[in-house]
């Protein structure tokens, strides 16, 4: 967090975090400021996301319950609000079981490294107008470099457990990562292409303002951007091992996959990492496509930027949960087929689409309508063709009745 | 509706050497059955399945019955020379005879194509101890696969020609056949390696050296 002076022209809510930080740093001698501000940023991130993780588990269980005609946890504290802490106490006090033949070092290392790797990506997300832990020129690259090793941890967990289910899960995790890393990155490239930068703050800044006074310049509100957003979210679902891509821990096939031999707090760490990863990818999606901390309309800027960011983030997370409650799981071959035969070609075509959009930035008037039409067609036509080939041979059936 | 006699006639016409007897059924159900000899069983089964006029394509139910050795008392009339000069006296005396038991396998056949059935086939083993094999009908009807394994498991009928004759409900190392009428329930089924008084005493009788961990002799 760079210690710039607080701009005075903004509302006090907007600058309140900065002032709080400066007030805290003022208690310390000047020579310690650089390290204190870093520690503070880390502490705030871990604290905020730790709390969010706790309540996200509750929210997921409540929401799933609502969707499934049941109340969800409602016994611990008022309306179940203390449930996450009860769970934490339970996880901490449980026996930590390590299989006799397990690779003990890797078995212990896997959950820790997974949590760490899922968390460090958050450092470059601009959570508000002035809220970014570190500002990097290659922030987008940093984010994906940090996330690249998460599936390696899952592999470690699966392999080190010396369990056949875990081993199968490890293989699945590898196949899944190889398949989905490509569309995930490819769907980000158009944003970088159009914004012309790898810096997350610059990408958010590029999405500020409104066309015709009401249409935000968010990337998701362009044809290529919408397509890239959808591809990103699908790949993000797969990257964070969420339903319908939760193959590594497919509970109806592999018991719990790579988690089979984990118990107690290590198991809880895996859960934590799953939610951190989900939150990190959603935060990146907000930054890249949904305008980051920008408010949707000018007069809505009375709410501070970080509130808008949180609102968008929570909406995406709710989407994750909704999808989990609704969809069945894909099979491993269908998973890879979806990645290679649908997502990757779509992402590549979308790249060309974004290049077209970027080149025609100067078109206006009736040409603007042509630009929109061409770009829309470049999304819809490949989508229809590719999805048809994906589901060839499948469809509703007509049934007959036996002659009596 | 095929009657059993009708089926029997067709079988005898096709397999003149085969023994096919009708076993009457005394209950109101009146479903008589056909006892066939083991030697021709497989041929007869194939014929029943493949002959268009019969087409018993589904073997619905396979089961065993254990018929114990029975003590039969025959009344034998002997003529003994009576009083000298008189007519011979007929003396009735009771003779005990053991009618050997056997194991019986019952197949219920139905024809889905003709909506006919059932035809009940019975196969009998020679006795209950040494000659306990009958030909397996699994090559004719796959539905017999598990059910014959079950009969083997619970009754001890050995099906020759069965592709995978293993125990199915009892565990592999098990020795007895629990559905036999003379099966004696073991008294140690609740044995477990815990030092509970009664169980441990029983266990000691069966397993002289305590092998399981946690089993102590502190009583």
């Amino acid at each position: 967090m760079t210690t710039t002076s607080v701009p005075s022209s903004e509302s006090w809510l907007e600058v309140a975090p900065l002032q709080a930080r400066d007030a805290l740093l003022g208690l310390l001698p000047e020579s310690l400021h650089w390290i204190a501000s870093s520690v503070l940023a880390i502490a705030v991130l871990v604290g905020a996301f730790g709390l969010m993780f706790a309540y996200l588990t509750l929210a997921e269980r409540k929401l799933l319950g609502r969707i499934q005609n049941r109340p969800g946890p409602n016994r611990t504290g008022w309306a179940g609000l203390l449930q996450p802490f009860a769970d934490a106490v339970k996880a901490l006090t449980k026996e930590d079981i390590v299989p006799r033949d397990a690779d003990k070092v890797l078995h212990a290392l896997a959950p820790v490294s997974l949590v760490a790797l899922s968390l460090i990506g958050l450092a470059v997300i601009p959570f508000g107008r002035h809220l970014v832990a570190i500002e990097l020129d290659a922030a987008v690259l940093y984010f994906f470099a940090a996330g690249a090793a998460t599936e390696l941890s899952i592999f470690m967990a699966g392999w080190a457990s010396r369990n056949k289910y875990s081993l199968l899960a490890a293989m699945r995790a590898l196949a899944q990562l190889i398949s989905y890393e490509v569309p995930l990155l490819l769907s980000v490239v158009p944003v970088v292409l159009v914004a012309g930068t790898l810096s997350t703050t610059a990408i958010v800044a590029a999405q500020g303002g409104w066309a015709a006074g009401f249409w935000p310049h968010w990337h998701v509100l362009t044809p290529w951007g919408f397509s890239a957003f959808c591809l990103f979210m699908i790949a993000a679902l797969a990257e964070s091992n969420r339903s319908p891509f939760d193959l590594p821990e497919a509970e109806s096939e592999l018991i719990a996959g790579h988690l089979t031999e984990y118990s107690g707090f290590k198991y809880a760490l895996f859960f934590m990492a799953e939610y951190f990863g989900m939150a990190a990818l959603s935060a990146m999606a907000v930054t890249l496509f949904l305008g980051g901390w920008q408010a949707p309309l000018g007069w809505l800027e009375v709410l501070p930027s970080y509130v808008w960011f949180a609102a968008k983030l929570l909406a995406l997370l709710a989407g994750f949960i909704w999808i989990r409650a609704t969809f069945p799981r894909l099979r491993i071959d269908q998973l890879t087929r979806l990645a290679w035969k649908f997502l990757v070609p779509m992402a590549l075509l979308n790249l060309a689409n974004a290049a077209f959009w970027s080149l025609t930035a100067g078109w206006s008037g009736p040409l603007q309508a042509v630009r929109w039409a061409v770009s829309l067609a470049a999304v819809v036509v490949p989508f229809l063709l590719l999805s048809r080939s994906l589901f060839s041979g499948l469809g509703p059936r007509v049934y007959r009745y036996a002659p009596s | 509706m095929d009657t059993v006699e009708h089926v029997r006639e067709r079988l005898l016409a096709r397999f003149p050497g085969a023994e096919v007897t009708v076993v009457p059924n005394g209950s109101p159900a009146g479903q008589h059955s056909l006892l066939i000899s083991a030697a021709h069983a497989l041929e007869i089964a194939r014929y029943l399945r493949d002959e268009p006029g019969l087409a018993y394509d589904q073997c619905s139910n396979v089961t065993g019955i254990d018929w114990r050795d029975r003590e039969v008392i025959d009344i034998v009339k002997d003529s003994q020379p009576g009083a000298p000069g008189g007519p011979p006296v007929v003396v009735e005396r009771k003779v005990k005879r053991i009618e050997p038991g056997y194991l019986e396998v019952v197949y219920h056949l139905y024809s889905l194509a003709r909506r006919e059935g059932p035809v009940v086939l019975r196969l009998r083993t020679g006795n209950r101890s040494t000659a306990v094999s009958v030909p397996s009908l699994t090559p004719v009807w796959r539905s017999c696969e598990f059910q014959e394994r079950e009969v083997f498991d619970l009754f001890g009928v050995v099906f020759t020609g069965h592709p995978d004759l293993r125990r199915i409900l009892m565990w592999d190392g098990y020795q007895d056949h629990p559905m036999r009428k003379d099966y004696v329930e073991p008294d140690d089924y609740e044995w477990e390696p815990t030092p509970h008084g009664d169980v441990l005493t029983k266990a000691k009788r069966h397993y002289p050296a305590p092998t399981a961990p946690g089993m102590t002799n502190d009583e």
Partner: protein
Amino acid sequence: MFDANPAASPSARVRKVEPSSFGFQPSSVPPPAGGGGDLLEISLGPHHPSTHGVFRMNVVLDGETVVRLKPVFGYLHRNHEKLGEGTSYLGSMPYTDRLDYLNSMTNNWAYAIAVEKLAGLTVPERAEYVRVILAELTRLLNHTCLAGFLMQDCGCSGTPLMYAFRERERILDLFESLSGSRMMCNYQRFGGCRVDPTPAWLAAVAQLVDRYGPFLDEFEELLTGNEIIMARTQGVGRLPAALAVNAGVTGPMLRASGVGHDLRKVDGYGVYPRLNFRVPVGDHGDVYDRYMVRVLEMRESISLLRQALAALPGGPVLDPKAKQRGLRPKAGEAYGRIEGPKGEIGFYLVSDGTANPYRYRVRPPSFVNLTVLEDLCLGHTVADAVIILGSIDIVLGEVDR
């Protein structure tokens, strides 16, 4: 006290069987042609989330492809049939509840039919209609649960299962108010039914029937057209009709393979010949067909329930001449079967003239349907094997007995 050593029990002393192929040896697995890949042997079960009880599949995998699958059962074996030989005819009735514990009503009915055949009893007309009502309610119950479990096996996070169980609860409430027990109903008797349903109960059934159609619509809207479900289930676990017939497969599984065989039509037991219903059949015999045939059967069951409720005559529900306790049928035998929700459930009884059956045999549909499990799974992945098992619809209480 008996001689305690099990090896010394009479029949064991006489003869010991040493079959050639006890146990399952991984070395006996033929290495798949085309080279490559280690084979991985996995024991799916007996404690596994999707084996629907204590069931085990010994699976040999090449990668994720199943190259061999041996079902192993017996974990729940309690020798039900031996128990039946030790109790009176009526005493076995509550035991039949525990066979397929989802469908105690149809188990009761099949057993009652077998005894009625054996003893030559008649059933009053009202009882026949009540039996139809209960059997069709059981069918709804079973198929709804099956669809929920199947979707759970496909990876749905409980939503279809919860929807299914919501409806199941309503039916179980009806059973409870009629028989006093939700699952172990013990309701049928030889020559009729135990208690006469009240008009209020019949009205409750009518109400449930009216809301079942909309529930099915909702359920189907969520699942039937879902692309992932179609991709997961269509073309998976195809069962050819000839194999299905030969392997004794019955029930919805047989009909999904294209054989329109329904004992309600074929045997025409009870009052089914007087009621109007159709038998849906599938053309592909895959998991999707098995699911859809069951959904369509539920719709037929709704129509059957409506007809039966409308035509329900008055009169007694139990033949007063039928003897319940101390029933001693003449020596002989009988095989009674009905179309249970899972397939043909039959009871084969041999009487020797005493109060206990000499032989009491259950023909369990799930057990026989499992014969084809390996054939269906070979060449598919583990994930498919799980849903194929789910589509067979087994209950271990019935398989192991």
